[in-house]
């Protein structure tokens, strides 16, 4: 038996979480270093997965399969395709930066009870989320996926509700109320989605008799497993609903702005750059493979919802007064692009969508983490409280600008490639929707540049006059991510090479071919 690399990649952060949580209260700093160490070790394992993965090999690689709950037909089955590998790498890459960025976010304010250990809890929860996200990218058993898809809500919930920005303008008590509201809203939305999915998961079992993604997909392709049209559609809707809440897609998005606004910047990055990706990933892996016909049936509606997300998210982002809320709405707009790329059912669209997931993760991380540094310096999240920061903190302002430009998909930075691919992929099949979606980019330029202009340029506000520039730790967080943004913007081939074969496979599952360019067709 070979070394269970995938299990190890998921188990390592889980062990790290337990170890971090067990650090005594007085040894806070040790807990931080331990968490960082474990996240780096996980990154090393994720890179090993990346290296061992052969893009031209079998569809699912590094597979593991063990019996688990035979009564429910559940197996512990892991396997990665190109899409999963890319997202595991993204997750493992971002966590060390999240840990580093949140270094002081959970230091206890006052010495309370001796047994109260918020710092240990904070980092342990981050690692727990990482473990669950990684295993849900790896799971090829629907039930196994579902378990971690749901279970990750709990640590996430405690991260949102338990830790917030320091120096809230309305005082700590009000902040705690708002935080727990956001946390509960997050949990209830996602739990409701998950429970609807549970009904569909049970339905799938009743129809198929097991939970193995590969077996069911194969039986579907061979025609061995017939599903009544209505059954397939109901099951599809059950799955898609949960993923659309997680992603989040308009009109199920309203938890995201609250959650991102109230949590600390690293946790906000964890939500939008890591956890939400499970939703879009699962649309690709589960909805399209298990229910190809229903996916095609639902495509028009989903495309329209995606476009609404793009435009609506962007419009609301323009109107925000709170920096984090603005970034949250921008993310909703970007998730619209990802969903649009997935359901355009073209190879450019889906490659673009996968690439978009990776790039959006990195660019949002840059923007949000710097926003977090900015907010912690000023003690306010309101855009109006800033002004002229670039004069006092040029490095901070410069990197913030790069993050903003990446968000608006400036050519040369990574998100441009993916957004372009998504739009091209959509346009070949749905020209009208493609055109409407393009306006999202225009709006993106508006909200990012206006944000930059109001906070960074203009006369220096007295409150920000003393603002220190980025510290060494903060530069260590931002610099590698910025380098990566530029690198993938100029040379996206490493990612596309890994992703493309998997996308081709998925498309063949739904039996869609890329539309031929009309010039060629005319020949």
């Amino acid at each position, binding site marked *: 038996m070979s070394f269970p690399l995938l299990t190890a990649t998921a188990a390592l952060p889980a062990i790290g979480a337990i170890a971090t949580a067990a650090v005594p209260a007085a040894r806070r700093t040790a807990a931080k270093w331990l968490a960082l160490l474990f996240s780096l070790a996980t990154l090393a394992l994720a890179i090993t997965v990346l290296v061992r993965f052969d893009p031209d090999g079998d569809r699912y690689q590094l597979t593991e399969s063990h019996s688990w709950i035979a009564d*429910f037909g559940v197996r512990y089955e892991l396997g990665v395709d190109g899409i999963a590998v890319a997202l595991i790498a993204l997750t493992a890459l971002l966590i060390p930066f999240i840990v580093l960025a949140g270094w002081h976010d959970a230091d206890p304010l006052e010495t309370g009870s001796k047994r109260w250990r918020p710092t240990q809890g904070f980092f342990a929860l981050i690692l727990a989320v990482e473990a669950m996200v990684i295993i849900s990218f790896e799971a090829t058993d629907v039930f196994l996926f579902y378990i971690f898809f749901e279970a990750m809500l709990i640590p996430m919930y405690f991260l949102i509700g338990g830790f917030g920005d320091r120096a809230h303008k309305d005082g700590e008590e009000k902040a705690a109320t708002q935080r727990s509201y956001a946390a509960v809203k997050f949990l209830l939305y996602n739990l409701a989605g998950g429970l609807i999915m*549970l009904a569909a998961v049970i339905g799938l079992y009743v129809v198929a008799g097991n939970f193995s993604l590969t077996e069911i997909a194969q039986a579907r392709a061979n025609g061995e497993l017939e599903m009544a049209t209505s059954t397939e559609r109901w099951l599809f809707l059950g799955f898609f609903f949960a993923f659309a809440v997680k992603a989040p897609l308009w009109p199920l998005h309203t938890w995201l702005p609250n959650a991102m606004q109230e949590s600390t910047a690293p946790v906000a990055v964890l939500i939008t750059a890591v956890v939400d990706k499970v939703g879009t990933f699962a649309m690709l892996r589960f909805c399209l493979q298990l229910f190809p016909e229903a996916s095609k049936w639902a495509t028009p509606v989903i495309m329209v919802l995606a476009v609404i997300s793009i435009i609506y998210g962007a419009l609301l982002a323009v109107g925000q007064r709170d920096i984090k809320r603005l970034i949250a709405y921008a993310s909703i707009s970007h998730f619209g692009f990802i969903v649009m790329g997935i359901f355009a059912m073209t190879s450019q669209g889906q490659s673009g969508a996968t690439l978009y997931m990776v790039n959006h993760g990195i660019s949002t991380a840059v923007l949000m983490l710097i926003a977090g540094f900015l907010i912690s310096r000023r003690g306010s999240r309101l855009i109006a409280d800033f002004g002229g920061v670039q004069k006092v903190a040029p490095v901070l302002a410069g990197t913030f600008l790069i993050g903003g430009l990446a968000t608006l998909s400036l050519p040369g930075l990574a998100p441009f490639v993916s957004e372009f691919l998504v739009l091209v992929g959509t346009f070949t099949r749905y020209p009208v929707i493609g055109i409407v979606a393009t306006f999202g980019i225009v709006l993106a330029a508006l909200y990012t540049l206006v944000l930059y202009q109001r906070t960074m340029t203009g006369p220096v506000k007295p409150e920000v006059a003393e603002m220190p520039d980025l510290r060494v730790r903060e530069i260590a967080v931002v610099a590698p991510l910025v380098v990566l943004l530029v690198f993938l913007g100029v040379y996206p081939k490493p990612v596309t090479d890994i992703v493309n074969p998997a996308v081709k496979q998925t498309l063949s599952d739904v039996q869609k071919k890329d539309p031929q360019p009309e010039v060629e067709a005319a020949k």
Partner: protein
Amino acid sequence: MSTTAAVHSLWTTAADPIVKIDAPKIEYGQLAPTLIVVGAALVGVLVEAFVPRKSRYYAQMFVSVVALVAAFAAVVALAADGYATTKAGIAAMGAIAVDGPALFLQGTILLTALVGLFTFAERRLDPEAHGNRVDSFAAQAAAVPGSDSEKRAVKAGFTTTEVFPLLLFAVAGMLVFPAANDLLTLFVALEVLSLPLYLLCALARRKRLMSQEAAVKYFLLGAFASAFTLFGIALLYGYAGSMSYATIAQVVDGTVPEITPALADTMGNDALLLIGAALLVMGLLFKVGAVPFHMWTPDVYQGAPTPVTGFMAAATKVAAFGALLRLLYVVLPGLRWDWRPVMWGVAIVTMLAGAIVAITQTDIKRLLAYSSIAHAGFILAGVIAATPSGISSVLFYLAAYSFVTIGAFAVVTLVRDAGGEATHLSRWAGLGRRSPLVAAVFAVFLLAFAGIPLTSGFAGKFAVFKAAAEGGAVPLVVVGVISSAVAAFFYIRVIVLMFFSEPRPEGPTVAVPSPLTMTAIAVGVAVTVVLGVAPQYFLDLAGDAGVFVR
């Protein structure tokens, strides 16, 4: 001469030759679990009468623990001997069934009772009264609350050690209840399990009036339900001419081998059958706390001493669902098309009402009471499946649920202030800051109640919903997941309160319990996690046990 003989024959007949009445054949070995517990309960009564007050507590503890462990060992031995599967049969002249479901449920009840016993015996939570360690029970049940005699009893350091034999009697009834194979045994078991529980409910040390009120409510409504049950039994007997489950089932199916004239008269009378069955099922639904027979649950759960509530919520539910399963699957399968629609309605209303009403609760014990109602609805969904996987899923759910319940109520006993347990929800604010461990443990139980994956609650919920979906009850599953979502809201609310609210200045303290309660809680957590992560072994166990003998 001949005329006299004829006259005489009007009032005399020739006597049958004297026959020897056969002594009933009792399979003592197969009944061992019940007999051990009953015997120990009787010993407990003697201990109460003859052992000096000082050493009664320890003597009772010893007797009860030994009895429960021995009875559990007997259950395991019977199961290992094949009585759960191949050798399953009817014992005690047709009164008791010894089969898979019976043994599985008896094992569950005995383990739950053992864990419950530990919480009964806890004596470190309440502050010492006049230098004597006291438990959750009244110093002297007969002393009027607030009277001088009560004060004297407290001062003398009395404790109600009678709770131990009472617990054992209740357990004995519960062991028979799911195994009863004729209607009279069922009724006797029902009364044997209920009467000690009514008494136990009235024995709280603190808030005695509330406790007594709860007991009276429970008793009155319970007596009412018993009367319904008895009436139902009478009607069913009238219909089938027999108390035996097997015979009634045959009459209902129309497969009875020999039709006597009396039977021929009544067996066509569907009114007798339907009304009888309905009344009988009503009595059992009362015990499981299903809507619309749930009214007693919140009051009794709140008023009863918390260890009793935990034990009652766990073990009674197991026993009553066992009896309900046997009744519906053994006696009334021929009536399936009649009871399934009704049970559909009951299950839907129970799930929704339990989940929705729980949202407005402000007392943790009442909240758990409504949550138990919602869970009764989920279990009913599995009962309705009417398939073998329906039986095994219900068995698994009951085992999973009872340990979560008993653990959760054990945690409730720890959170205290000057007036005893602090059960009002607002008092729990910020508990996570003060005692992270206790709050975390309670959060685990709440997540299990909510059915979050990796806890036993999820595995159980999945099992019953899967069985229901396979049995064709898809709408029931949909209602089930919706009410789960609603229910999740109030479980989460408690977690929010514990972890995200600021602690109150004069909030409750968390008492440090003795190893007894700690064991109870630890067992609860362990079972919750093990059944959540690796349920296969226990699902196999429940699956193997999922066949009723008839």
